[in-house]
């Protein structure tokens, strides 16, 4: 099994149809185990039960950046190798990445509530994630703005790569901006070293969420491939009508058949 075999969308559909149920099953089992372990984990002596938000928050935050990485590789695939599935992969990943980022924001803000006394603090990490969220939304808007997928593909790929280069710069600037304004007054989240009792559930959850991403991504790619097939079938239907209407005018069959004979 190589990348070349996957280049054929039909083969990709057949392969993923076989893999997906197993992946979904594994994801469900791991998530169940992870959630059980998280629920069983002891309360933190400082933060109490709220520390358990970490088991959801950290995997989401990690995936929010990982998905952009996946999209950047896919963008290279579009621009450099012109892999036919690369754009499909990038486009399918964007909404999932945005969803993970959004969950990271929501859980982060819920976690911050008892510590800061407000739902939102312009904390350097949260702010960076918020900007990442905006970039995901902008990218999705770009795909939506252009009807023809092949035209949107290159523009989106370039923007993804520019984003990938810019994200560290943005992160650095936000950190600098934040320390400039409030020198270390915020309690850092997850700053203490992790006890084993926390580490294991966190690892399981991280793997479970990564599997969840792979499952959702493959399913979304299948949908995108099918959507594009519907589109090209519709375009074929439109051009077929142009031909059949020449026959179908009916009133002057002789002339019509002559036209077709000439063509």
């Amino acid at each position, binding site marked *: 099994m190589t990348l070349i075999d996957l280049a054929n969308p039909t083969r990709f559909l057949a392969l993923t149809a076989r893999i997906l149920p197993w992946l979904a099953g594994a994801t469900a089992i791991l998530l169940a185990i992870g959630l059980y372990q998280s629920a069983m984990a002891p309360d933190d002596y400082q933060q109490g039960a709220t520390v358990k938000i970490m088991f959801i928050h950290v995997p989401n935050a990690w995936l929010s950046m990982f998905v952009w990485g996946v999209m950047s590789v896919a963008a290279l695939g579009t621009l450099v190798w012109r892999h036919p599935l690369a754009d499909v992969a990038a486009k399918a990943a964007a909404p999932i990445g945005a969803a993970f980022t959004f969950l990271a924001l929501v859980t982060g803000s819920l976690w911050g509530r008892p510590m800061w006394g407000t739902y939102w603090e312009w904390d350097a990490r949260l702010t960076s994630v918020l900007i990442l969220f905006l970039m995901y939304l902008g990218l999705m808007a770009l795909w939506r703005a252009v*009807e023809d997928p092949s035209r949107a593909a290159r523009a989106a790929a370039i923007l993804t790569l520019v984003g990938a280069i810019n994200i560290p710069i943005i992160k650095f600037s936000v950190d600098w901006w934040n320390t400039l304004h409030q020198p270390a007054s915020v309690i850092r989240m997850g700053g203490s070293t992790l006890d084993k009792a926390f580490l294991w559930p966190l690892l399981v959850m991280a793997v479970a969420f990564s599997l969840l991403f792979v499952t959702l991504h493959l399913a979304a790619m299948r949908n995108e491939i099918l959507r594009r097939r519907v589109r090209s079938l*519709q*375009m074929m*239907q*439109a*051009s077929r*009508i*142009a031909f*059949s*209407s*020449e026959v*179908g*005018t009916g*009133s*002057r069959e002789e*002339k*019509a058949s002559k*036209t077709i004979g000439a063509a």
Partner: protein
Amino acid sequence: MRLSGRNLRCVRGGREVFSALDFSVSSGEALTVLGPNGSGKTSLLRLIAGLLVPADGAIALNGGEAELSVSEQAHYLGHRDALKPALSVLENLSFWRDFLGGEMQDARQCLAAVALDHATDLPAAYLSAGQRRRLSIARLLAVRRPVWLLDEPTSALDAAGQELFVGLMRQHLGRGGIIIAATHLPLGIEAGELRMRGPA
């Protein structure tokens, strides 16, 4: 019914396009407006459609509905298709039918009349230039208006499409309609001629 213009003068962008122009068309008649590029064929149609204001002269439709203006009793088929690519073929036609109002026909039947009835649910973005033109012709059928103002109506149509359109124009004239068409190509129906002089 009789559509006539008297002593029309048209000025666009400070330049006189034509002046002292008279024409008259009766029910069941067609008039083709001929002339070189820039002689004011499109301007004349837009003048009749009420989209331009004549610098001089007047246009009248005798025997039409008294309380409606000429433009409200006319269909205008211009260079541009007035179609939205994001909407389906049927949605495009249904919108114009509902918006223009008056005596309406079934939208699907009108699409069948221009041989687009298999494409009703496709987005208009997928249509070729000729198919787009057919769809705008279907608009002329969806809502009944006595006057048809056609600007190069057959330019994008293939042979079959032109033939189909000739049939539709004959039907319209048979019902007592009026057609004024600006064209370079012969329309395929018996029609009076109005020759525009070139730019002075």
